[in-house]
């Protein structure tokens, strides 16, 4: 594992447009990491101590259903951010996550980033705003899936 370069963070869509100095401060709490296909990043109800920017590969969010095993809920690919349970108490994962393919990420230490956000409110507002946008986007996507649109499409 090596420290992420600023360019790596700057190139990731989740951090697009972030001030260079803020990127530099954020980068101190991150490092590159990779996961082989089938590797578990975290499990449901585990401590949410990290989050990841996915650079390449694919990660599945899953939930264990008795009798059905780990049911795949959603996949996240390059350009996505994985993990927001670290933002709020009780800091526990609501779902699990597994790499579906060899996956390259930038992995962040959650406690360090939370501390950074308290010390630098401007950075905190920026970062929390980005996470809220992701949460809203996924909520909208979930609502669309609830509509079961394709069942009613026509020839």
């Amino acid at each position, binding site marked *: 594992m090596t420290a992420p370069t600023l360019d790596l963070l700057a190139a990731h869509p989740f951090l697009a447009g972030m001030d260079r100095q803020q990127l530099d401060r954020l980068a101190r709490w991150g490092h590159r990491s990779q996961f082989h296909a089938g590797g578990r990043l975290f499990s449901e109800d585990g401590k949410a101590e990290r989050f990841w920017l996915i650079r390449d590969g694919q990660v599945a969010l899953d939930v264990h259903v008795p009798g059905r095993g780990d049911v795949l809920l959603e996949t996240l690919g390059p350009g*996505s951010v994985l993990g927001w349970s670290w933002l709020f108490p009780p800091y526990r994962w609501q779902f699990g996550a597994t790499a579906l393919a060899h996956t390259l990420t930038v992995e962040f230490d959650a406690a360090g980033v939370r501390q950074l956000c308290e010390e630098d409110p401007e950075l905190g507002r920026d970062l929390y705003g980005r996470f809220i946008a992701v949460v809203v986007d996924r909520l909208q996507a979930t609502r669309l*899936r609830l509509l079961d*649109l*394709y069942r009613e499409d026509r020839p």
Partner: protein
Amino acid sequence: MIPQPYRVVERKFETTDTVTVTLEPVGAGIGRWAPGQFTMVYAFGVGEVPVSISGGSCGLIRHTVRDVGAVTHAICTAQPGTVLGLHGPYGHGWELDHPPAEDLLVLAGGIGLAPLRPVVTEALARPGRYRHVCVLIGARQPADLLYTHEYGAWRAAGAQVLVAVDRADPSWRGSVGVVTGLLLQARFAAPRTAAFVCGPEVMMRFAARDLGYLGVPADRIRVSLERNMQCGTGQCGHCQLGPLVVCRDGPVVGWDVAAPLLSVKEL
């Protein structure tokens, strides 16, 4: 308006309820067609329905039809040798070259891939015409995906083909989520992209919105509208959508035209 006789020469199940029929003209046929246009397909003794053209060459025409009613059932179950009637082609198609674009983005949901399939094949038949050809496909579940046997050839021809399903089965190894979620991975330069979108209307609205957020101009986004098309010639008015008669002015229209109409409830 008189149906031209076409003989079914091939019938292929795409999914459990969706069939592609290949039709050969018995006589002169309906002539040239463009991707995005549709024909009225007549199952003799049952009735007729508008169906987008999903492919064909050298006089052959392919229609991909979902078995949802009496007429579509008659078409889906038509065995090779059966004669169907076609008239058309009708409507405005996708118009690949207007306006000129460097990148082509095709975004299809469910059976919406059918009218976009000829766009993909035509774009890939012209190497170098586009810098990137991205095909984003969404479906309810893996078993509902159309033309899966062609994705490999499209990729081999240079297209970026990304597929997402709403619900995975244990065999699925691809993406799970809404098709618009694939936009993050698609390779295209938004201001210079032509985006063609077809699928359930709500999906098209959200897709067009997301494309707009990414910087694709509204007049470079085209959608294929579905309304109750009955005559195909703009005479009966059944498919009126505000100032548009969809069979004549559509089914493919720019998002700059469609957006204000689709935001009106019950229009």
